[in-house]
């Protein structure tokens, strides 16, 4: 995405706007015209707990507003109120200045409000095309479903997002990131006046993000109002004109993006100073732990051979950043190392010995840990307590007859709670009572407690707020400093740049570059990650 010189220059320079060929940006002075959608003093309680406490915000035609806040600040809750998932306990919603009440998502949809949900809400078994239209399938004269139109429009919508997948393929065969793109396409195919995006880029890599930027600009030019939620502040700067910051369910500040700066936004969100990018103690790298030589996956597995020829080396005490665009093969590389997917060709060398893990347990026995990118799907046990989720990997050995060492586990967990600042009201309560960031910390703790020699971390800060993000980064630096070899997969380039010692880029499942982080720049990496022709 373009890095503007001055924040207020953003709009004039935004490439998307030119592309859209729409009118130049109309200055939205508050009160100048009746806002398209307005929330006045929204209050929402869950079982007597006030989650939103009198939040007001407004969206004018063509306005792009950022909604910022830490995990649990109430962003998604506002969105749920605006889209009829929940109903406010106080305050009012106004559409074109007239009060409205949405008792079901359907009604909000009819009012022209469409939402890209934070949690993927797709239909794994359905075809991509159908998933895009689910809930409002177009019908032909006979009142039957018009499959031809569905496929056509779906294809166009995906093309517009620069995503070329077979619209007839089942959603389940797409990557998390690709599914996220489909979610976006869904919102675009509706004739919307307001598009709400709840962390749409959480699992996207830079050039999808850029695509999204262009589209947001187009929407804005067409007079569609956009409410944009993200924890990535550079995106806020690039896409949004105005912003509202939430903290503990209250709107603590609002204004124009060009009149503020990132540090103050962070201060507003966190309610405290957060030191960004504070790099930890200097580390010296030791012997190589993991070496991949021309690693390739089996073809015809989940949308074809995603990994073709990956070469890389990770040393003790080193953080190796693995960068790539969606579907570059990072996750599947990790899955192969961890024994989750069959290996097509090439070899894995672990501590100087050739190694192939037949199963995760085998990989763990060999001292490998893996934090998957899909927290909800592959990490947490939703019904079980925080403590049980932590104990899952058996980091604390069981007593005779596999008797659980409850005290030992409690002690270990307590340590992590303190160190990582895990905010949990009760460790006996289900893990789903924690915010996303805190869940992620528990998962990391689960693996670090195992004291692995090699830790593979896939998208460690997906959907995590700035504060929590810093905690997680500090943690990763610390374990590296303790001599653990860390393979860091992240679609968040700044993250890769600040954390890594070395950075390897993948494109179409092949290693395209391997360089010290010190010498890398995001532009340079992007060039390596995308095809340049």
């Amino acid at each position, binding site marked *: 995405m373009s890095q503007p010189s001055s924040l207020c220059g953003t709009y004039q320079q935004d490439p998307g706007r030119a592309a859209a060929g729409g009118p130049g940006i109309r200055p939205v002075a508050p009160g100048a015209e009746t806002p398209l959608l307005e929330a006045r003093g929204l209050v929402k309680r869950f079982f007597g707990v006030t989650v939103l406490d009198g939040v007001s915000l407004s969206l004018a035609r063509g306005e792009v507003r950022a909604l910022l806040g830490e995990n649990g600040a109430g962003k998604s809750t506002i969105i749920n109120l605006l889209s009829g998932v929940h109903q406010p306990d106080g305050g009012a919603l106004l559409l074109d200045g007239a009060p409205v009440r949405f008792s079901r*998502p*359907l009604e909000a949809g009819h009012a022209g409000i469409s*939402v890209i949900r934070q949690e993927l809400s797709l239909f794994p078994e359905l075809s991509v095309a159908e998933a895009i239209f689910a*809930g409002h399938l177009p*019908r032909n004269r006979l009142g039957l*479903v018009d499959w031809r139109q569905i496929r056509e429009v779906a294809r166009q919508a995906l093309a517009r997002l620069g995503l070329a997948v077979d619209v007839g393929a089942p959603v389940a065969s797409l990557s998390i990131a690709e599914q996220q793109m489909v979610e976006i396409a869904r919102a675009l195919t509706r004739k919307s006046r307001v598009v709400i995006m709840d962390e749409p880029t959480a699992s996207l890599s830079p050039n999808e993000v850029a695509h999204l930027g262009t589209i947001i600009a187009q929407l804005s030019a067409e007079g569609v109002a956009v409410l944009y939620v993200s924890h990535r502040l550079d995106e806020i700067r690039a896409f949004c004109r105005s912003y509202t910051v939430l903290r503990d369910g209250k709107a603590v500040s609002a204004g124009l993006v060009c009149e503020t700066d990132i540090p103050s936004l962070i201060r507003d969100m966190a309610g405290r100073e957060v030191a960004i990018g504070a790099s930890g103690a200097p580390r010296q790298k030791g012997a190589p732990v993991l070496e991949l030589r021309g690693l390739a996956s089996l073809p*015809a597995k989940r949308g*074809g051979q995603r990994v073709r020829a990956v070469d890389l080396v990770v040393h003790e005490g080193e953080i190796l950043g693995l960068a790539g665009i969606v579907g570059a093969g990072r996750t599947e590389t990790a899955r192969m190392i961890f024994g989750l997917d069959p290996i097509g060709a090439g070899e894995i060398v672990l501590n100087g010995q050739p190694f192939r893990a037949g199963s995760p347990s085998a990989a763990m026995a060999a001292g490998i840990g893996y934090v998957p990118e899909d927290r909800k799907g592959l990490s947490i046990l939703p019904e079980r307590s925080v403590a049980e989720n932590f104990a899952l990997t058996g980091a604390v050995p069981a007593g005779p007859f596999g008797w659980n060492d409850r005290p030992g586990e409690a002690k270990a967990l307590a340590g992590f709670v303190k160190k990582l600042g895990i905010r949990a009201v009760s460790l006996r309560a289900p893990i789903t009572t924690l915010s996303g960031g805190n869940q992620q910390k528990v998962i990391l703790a689960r693996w670090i407690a195992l004291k692995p020699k090699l830790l593979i971390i896939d998208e460690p800060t997906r959907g995590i707020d700035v504060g929590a993000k810093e905690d997680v980064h500090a943690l990763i630096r610390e374990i590296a400093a303790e001599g653990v070899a860390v393979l860091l997969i992240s679609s968040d380039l700044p993250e890769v740049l600040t954390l890594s010692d070395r950075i390897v880029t993948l494109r179409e499942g092949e290693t395209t570059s391997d360089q010290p982080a010190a010498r890398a720049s995001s532009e340079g990496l992007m060039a390596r990650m995308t095809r340049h022709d």
Partner: protein
Amino acid sequence: MTKAQADELSRARIYALLGRLAPLIFLLALVIIFASLQPRFLMPLNLFNILRQVSIYGIIAVGMTFVILIRGIDLSVGALIAMSGLCAAVVAKGGIEGRFMLSADGSGFHWTLAALAAILAGTAAGLLQGMAVAWLSVPAFVVTLGGMTVFRGIALSIGNGGPVSGFDEGFGWWGRGMIGPVPVPVLIFAAVALVAWVVLTQTRFGRAVYAVGSNPDAARLSGINVSGVTLSVYALIGFCSGLGGFVLASRLNSAEAVAGTGYELTAIAAVVIGGTSLYGGTGGVGGTVIGALLTGVLLNGLVILNVSPYTQQILVGLIIVAAVAFDHFIKRQSR
């Protein structure tokens, strides 16, 4: 990448197609085996026998397909068949001598009313269960397990345990009549299956069924009336059971409270053999028809080969599992 990936995905689609054909392949294999062991198996008479025998739980299985597609299950269909069959019978006879009369002079009603009674009884019962599932959010397994005993009990009280038999021609035609060489129940089954197929593949309701089965929360967020769909689906299988109950009573020229025992399991087996996933969202009526035929062929063939009764039970169980295993094996190839 994107290009290559597209190819790969369409390959996945080819496999998926193969996956859809798996049950058919298994069915053909079975037919070939039986035919080669006993040529008489292929006599048209026998084939029509199989079709007629399949038709009634086939009708149920079609309804069951909808239920399973939304991750539901219905164990009450067998009991519903008995209950609705008795409703039809009682109406057709105008009551039960010595117990109660429906008409002043105790004379029976026209078969249309009898059929209506059966279908209404079935649909109402289904609707009730649907409410419990959709509104009280009691698992379908429990609701219909309860329904199974409740409706059986009602059936017993209607007929006071005994059969109600002997109906007029019009009534009997639906179960024993022929159109040309084809038995009427077979045509009813075909019609039901066809309509169901169109509904599932070509209408919004049908697609909503798949969406709800695939991801209920997402379905709700995309404005689909999930509990509405649930209600309709259970009402629908109630309808099928009512229809089935009527046809069965007509076929047997008699309705009794123990009729239809075990049909629920046969129907579910047919659906699953047909490749519909018990976890919802994938499958369809086409497969179910194959599945129903497969079970029919199996039962008929083993008798034709006069396999001893005990061995029969053992074989039936094994082959059903084998059929599903085969289906899953093929399907796994596509992932």
